[in-house]
C-alpha cells in the first residue's frame, strides 16, 4: 500500500514535467493551430542559455527572468523568419520545417556547449521533504510553478484584449483580419509565449532530468501524448493529461506490464482513447460545416 502511494506520488511528480511541456505545445496550437515538434529542443536550448548566464555570474532568478525574455524574442523571430514564410497552406511542409528546426536546435546546442551531462540548480532546498517524505521540495515547487503558469494563461486568454484577440486570430484568421486584428503579429506572440513557457518548463525540469542536449528526447514524447490526450486546445486538459499519463505509466510499469512495455501500452491506451474521444478527454468536439 505504501509503495502504491509512493508510485502515485512519483507519477504525479513526473506528470508535472509532462504537463509543463504539454502546456507549451498546447500554447502554440491554441494560438496558431500548429504542432511544434521542435518544442522540446527549443526548451532545451533555452535551458542552456539559462545555464550559460549562470556560468557568467548571474543569480538563479535573474538568469531565469532573462532567459524567459530571450526565449520569447527567439520564439517570435523563429515564427517570423522560419515559420511564416512557409505559409498556412501546407501542413506537410510545416512538418518538414519544424523537424529541420529540431535538428538545428539539437545539433547546434551540442556544437556550442558539448554533450556533457550537467547538474542544474534548483531554487528549492535539496534536503527538505514534504507530505510524509514522499515529495521533495523541488517537486512541490515545480507543481506550484506549473499551476501558476496555467492560471496566468487562463487569465490572459480569458480577460486580456491581447489574449482574446489571439484566440480569435487562431480560430478564424480571415474574419479577424477583416475586423482589424493584426493576425501575423499575434501568431508571432503565440510562438514567443510558447517559447517562454518552454523555457520555464526546461529550467524547472532540468534539475530532475539533468541538463544535456538530449534531455528532452523522452520527455517531449510524453508531453505530446499528454497534450493530445487531454485536448490540445485546452490548457487545463493538457495539464490534466500530463498528470494522468505520469500516474498511469507508473502504475502500468510497476504492477501490470513491466517497465519495458509501459510506454507502448500507455501509447496504445492513448490511441484507444482518441479513437473514442477524438478531441481528447477534456477537449471539446468542434462541429464543422461540410
Amino acid at each position, binding site marked *: 500500500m505504501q509503495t502504491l502511494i509512493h508510485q502515485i506520488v512519483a*507519477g504525479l511528480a513526473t506528470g508535472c514535467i509532462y504537463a509543463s511541456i504539454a502546456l507549451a505545445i498546447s500554447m502554440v496550437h491554441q494560438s496558431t493551430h500548429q504542432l511544434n515538434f521542435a518544442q522540446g529542443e527549443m526548451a532545451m536550448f533555452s535551458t542552456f542559455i539559462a545555464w550559460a548566464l549562470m556560468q557568467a555570474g548571474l543569480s538563479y532568478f535573474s538568469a531565469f527572468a532573462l532567459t524567459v525574455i530571450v526565449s520569447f524574442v527567439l520564439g517570435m523571430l523563429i515564427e517570423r523568419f522560419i515559420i511564416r514564410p512557409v505559409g498556412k497552406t501546407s501542413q506537410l511542409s510545416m512538418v518538414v520545417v519544424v523537424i529541420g528546426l529540431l535538428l538545428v536546435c539539437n545539433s547546434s546546442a551540442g556544437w556550442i556547449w558539448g554533450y556533457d551531462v550537467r547538474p542544474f540548480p534548483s531554487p528549492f532546498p535539496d534536503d527538505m521533504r514534504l507530505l510524509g517524505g514522499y515529495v521533495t521540495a523541488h517537486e512541490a515547487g515545480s507543481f506550484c510553478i506549473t499551476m501558476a503558469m496555467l492560471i496566468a494563461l487562463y487569465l490572459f486568454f480569458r480577460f486580456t484584449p491581447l489574449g482574446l484577440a489571439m484566440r480569435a486570430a487562431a480560430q478564424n484568421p480571415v474574419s479577424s483580419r477583416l475586423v482589424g486584428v493584426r493576425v501575423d503579429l499575434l501568431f508571432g506572440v503565440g510562438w514567443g509565449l510558447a517559447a517562454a513557457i518552454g523555457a520555464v518548463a526546461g529550467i524547472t525540469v532540468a534539475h530532475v532530468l539533468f541538463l544535456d542536449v538530449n534531455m528532452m528526447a523522452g520527455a517531449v514524447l510524453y508531453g505530446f501524448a499528454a497534450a493530445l490526450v487531454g485536448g490540445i486546445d485546452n490548457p487545463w486538459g493538457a495539464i490534466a493529461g500530463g498528470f494522468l499519463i505520469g500516474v498511469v505509466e507508473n502504475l502500468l510499469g510497476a504492477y501490470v506490464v513491466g517497465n519495458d512495455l509501459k*510506454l507502448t501500452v500507455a501509447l496504445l491506451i492513448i490511441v484507444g482513447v482518441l479513437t473514442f474521444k477524438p478531441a481528447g478527454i477534456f477537449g471539446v468536439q468542434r462541429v464543422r460545416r461540410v
Partner: protein
Amino acid sequence: MNRKMTVLTVALSLAFAGQALAQKKYPPGITDTEIKVGQTSPLSGPASAYGTIPKVQMAYFKMLNEQGGINGRKINLIALDDAYSPPKTVEQVRRLVEKDQVAFIFNILGTAPNISVRKYLNSKKIPQLFTAAGASTFGNYKEYPWTIVLQPSYKDEARIYVEYLKKNKPDAKVALFTGNDDAGKDYVDGIKEAMGPELAKKMIVAEATFESTDPTVDSQVISLQASGADTLFVHAVSKWASMTIRKVYDIGWKPLFILSATGTSVSGVLAPAGLEKAKGIITAYYLKDPNDPQWANDQGYKDWLAFMKKYYPEGSTGDQLNVYGYTMAQALVQTLKQCGDDLSRENIMKQAANLDIALPMLLPGIKIKTGPTDYYGVQAQRMMRFNGQTWELFGDIIGEN
C-alpha cells in the same frame, strides 16, 4: 622548353613507377607516407555524446603525425557518422573499404553496428580492430578471426561483482536494474551465469529495466526498494546512472550499491547526482578516471591532460570517453609499431592479437594482453569504492592479465 618537358616526363614516369611499386608492395590503405584507417560512430543523433571518441583519436593521431608518425607513416583516420543505425554502419563501412580503401577498421562504436559489419569484414579478411562495445560475442576468434576487442566484456565485469558478493555478502538479496539494451542484457546474463541457476534464484529478488526514452527512473527505483532487496546492481550510462543514484538516496534506501563501470565518471555521473549521495558505491574498472584527484600527480594523467589542452582543447577533460579513446588509439599505435614495415592485413591482425602492454591510463597493474587464442584485451579489473570525493581502489586485481 624542351628540357622542361623532359624533366616533367621523367618526373611523371617516376611518379607512376613509384606508385606502381607502392601498390605492388603495400596492401590497400598503406603507402610509404600514410596508413589509412576507417571508423564509424554516432556523430549525430541521440547517441552523439560518443562522437567525442573519434575526435580525441583524430587529435591523438595529429600529435603523433607531428612527431613523425609511425616509421615515417602518418595515420589518417577517416571517421564517418552512422548515427548508431546498423544499416548506416554497413553503408559507411563499405564506403571506407571499397571507396576510401582503408587498411583496416578501428573502434566502431556499439554492439549492433559492430555485429552488422562483422561478417562482411571477416569475409573480406579486413581487420576489425578493438570494437568499442563490450559484448562478449566479439572475442570469438574461432568464428571471426578478424574481429578483436580490447575493453573488458560486460560478462567478465559481472562475474567480478558476483565473486565479491559470494565472499562478502553471501545472503544478499539482489535487485538488478539495467538499461533495456545489449549491454544491460549482457550484464544480467553475466550475473546469472556467474551465480548459477540455484544461487540466482535465491539471491535475485527483483529485476527492472529502463528505456532510453524514459524521462525518469523514479518508478523503477521505488518498485525495487519495495522488493526488500538489500543489494542493488545498476547498469546505466550518464544521466540514467545519476538519476538512479539520486533517487535511491532521496527515498532513504541504503542498499549495497554496485554500479557498472559504464556509469562511474565522477564529473559526468556522480557530481550531477550529488557526491555525498554517491558515497559507498562500489564498482570495477580498468581506466584511470580523469576527474579523480588521486591521479593529479600521476605522469600518465599529466601527459593526457597536456595532450588534451594542446590538441583537443574543445574536448571535455572530465569525460572518461576521452580517456577511453586515447587509450584505444595508443593500443593501435602499439599494434602498428609492432608490425614494422610489414603492414599487410594478415600481419596487422597478427600483431593486434599479440599485444602485451601496460598503457599509461590503465589502472596500475592492468595490462592489455592478447594472443592468437585470446581475443579479449583487458580482462583484469580492480574494484573501487567511492568515498564522497574519489574512487578508492581496494582488493587485488581480479581476473587474469
